């Protein structure tokens, strides 16, 4: 079985409320999956079930071939969880903490995966070298989040979970975080599942985007595929004789060809815009909220 993550018909019920009602998806080695969805859609619940921190009501879940509900310490050693630090380990020095947490992984080293990550190399990877000797409480917010990522990957996980890792990041910290993620997938073949509210981020990082709404996955595909499949309509803007025009076209190319045939050189400021991920996302979520049950699955061409 090649799937690192395999979730089938996952259901979660709190009291009488169904938060998840039949979530299914899978991920292969080295894939980055981004889970999008409105607040309360069950993103955090889903990720916590996969982390083994939360019991599910029903369905089948397999992470690295093991049910997280019964994952032992050896399974735990192959997974990584990026948690948001608050004031924990405030008195520890950055290097000291990473070296300490790494020790637990040493017995789980294999010929192909050396565990833990060399501590200085790891600090370099997340860009904390100038701060390695600082106490955790003296780090800035962005540095702290980089430390969170470092703690999550110190055991060289084969699969990494991140729940809103960039909430509260400034643009620079966000860019640096994206670089770290790219490095992880390129060099380490780490499978990553992350949740976010930032559609830009999803577009930048995801091999595949999953949209969770109404307790189920309503879309599954790359950003490009989703917008292509969702709305064939593109927005065409132009001006003629100082007047602005906007038109939503099903076939933008044919429309523009016709536009030039009719008006020729007088067409100016032409702009054709394919539906963005945001448009697609909004449209899909709105559909789901109005109870149109359909799942948009895009099979890579």
């Amino acid at each position, binding site marked *: 079985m090649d799937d690192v993550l395999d979730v089938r018909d996952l259901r979660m019920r709190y009291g009488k409320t169904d938060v998840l009602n039949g979530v299914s998806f899978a991920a292969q080695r080295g894939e980055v999956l981004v889970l999008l969805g409105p607040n309360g859609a069950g993103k955090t619940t889903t990720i916590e079930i996969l*982390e083994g921190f939360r019991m599910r009501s029903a369905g089948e879940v397999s992470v690295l071939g093991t049910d997280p509900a019964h994952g032992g310490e050896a399974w735990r050693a192959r997974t990584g969880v990026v948690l948001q630090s*608050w004031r924990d*380990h405030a008195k520890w020095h950055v290097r000291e903490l990473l070296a300490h947490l790494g020790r*637990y992984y040493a017995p789980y080293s294999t010929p192909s995966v050396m565990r833990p990550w060399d501590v200085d190399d790891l600090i370099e990877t997340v860009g904390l070298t100038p701060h390695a000797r600082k106490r955790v409480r003296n780090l800035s917010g962005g540095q702290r989040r980089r430390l969170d990522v470092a703690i999550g990957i110190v055991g060289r996980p084969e699969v990494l979970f991140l729940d809103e890792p960039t909430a509260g990041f400034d643009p620079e910290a966000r860019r640096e975080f994206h670089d770290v993620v790219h490095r992880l997938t390129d060099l380490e073949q780490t499978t990553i599942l992350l949740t976010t509210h930032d559609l830009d981020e999803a577009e930048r990082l995801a091999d595949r985007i999953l949209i969770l709404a109404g307790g189920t996955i309503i879309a599954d595909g790359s950003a490009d595929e989703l917008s292509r499949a969702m709305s064939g309509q593109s927005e065409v803007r132009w001006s003629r004789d100082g007047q602005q025009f906007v038109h939503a076209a099903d076939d933008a190319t044919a429309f523009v060809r016709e536009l030039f045939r009719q008006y020729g050189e007088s067409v100016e400021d032409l702009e054709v815009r394919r539906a963005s991920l945001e448009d697609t996302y909004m449209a899909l979520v709105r559909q789901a909220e109005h109870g149109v049950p359909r799942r948009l699955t895009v099979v890579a061409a």
Partner: protein
Amino acid sequence: MNPALVAARAGLSRGWIEFKQTLTTPRDLISILITTGTFLAVMIWTRHTHVPGTHFSLGTATLVSVLALDVVYYGVVTMGDLIVVEREDGTLLRAKAIPNGMLGYLLGKVVNFSGQIAFAVAILLLTGAFLFTGLAIGSPGSWLTLAWVLALGLLATLPLGAVLGSLFPSQRSAGPWWLLMLGGLTAISGVFYPITHLPVFLQWAGQVFPMYWLGLGMRSALLPNAMAAVEVGHSWRHLATFGVLSAWAVAGLVLAPVVLRRMARRESGSSVAARREKAMRR
């Protein structure tokens, strides 16, 4: 190598690192010194008062009994409180997210607090040796008794602290209970005054809890033998001391893993986030 063994070793060094942090963090160090200083002031105040029925300095007797209070304070209250705090701030969740992390975490706490208790006891005994007369610290027998009472005391209190700590939802809700518990126990455990002067039902109540027996053990180690006269049954009751402290130790060691596991099972990123938000709103 055996992963549990590796985690246990990591836990030992974790405890040592945390203990050093306590000693090098001004705030923590000052709080230890203030607590110890307050006790010393009380003892100096009562230095020339006699333990009723004897010619022995009440201050010296109190110094020895306060060692028991110290063990319970650090072993149960400080330990429990730190568990509450570290569950709230996500330290515990981090331990849960790494292989055998909980084992390392708990061993670390045990080492850290054993160190703090040893440190506090050492300060009290050192200053006591200079300021007070009548301490029986000359014979190896005294130190041997002190050693086993202290060791058993750690076993009786630290797991108990961990258990109580896992029962409170937040540090704010825990605070008053710790104070009430410590104050109440101190009052009925014969720390500042012989227990034999209390009403009989309170004597019985005091003898249920480890603080009384720790105090009795400490007194048997560090006070002259003649002082046994003011104790219950005019005896140091070593066998009973061993029995009661062992019973608390066994109860704690059996209960702690169950309660801690139950608490840890409920921890997740969202529960820590919820507490953070709640704390930020205050």
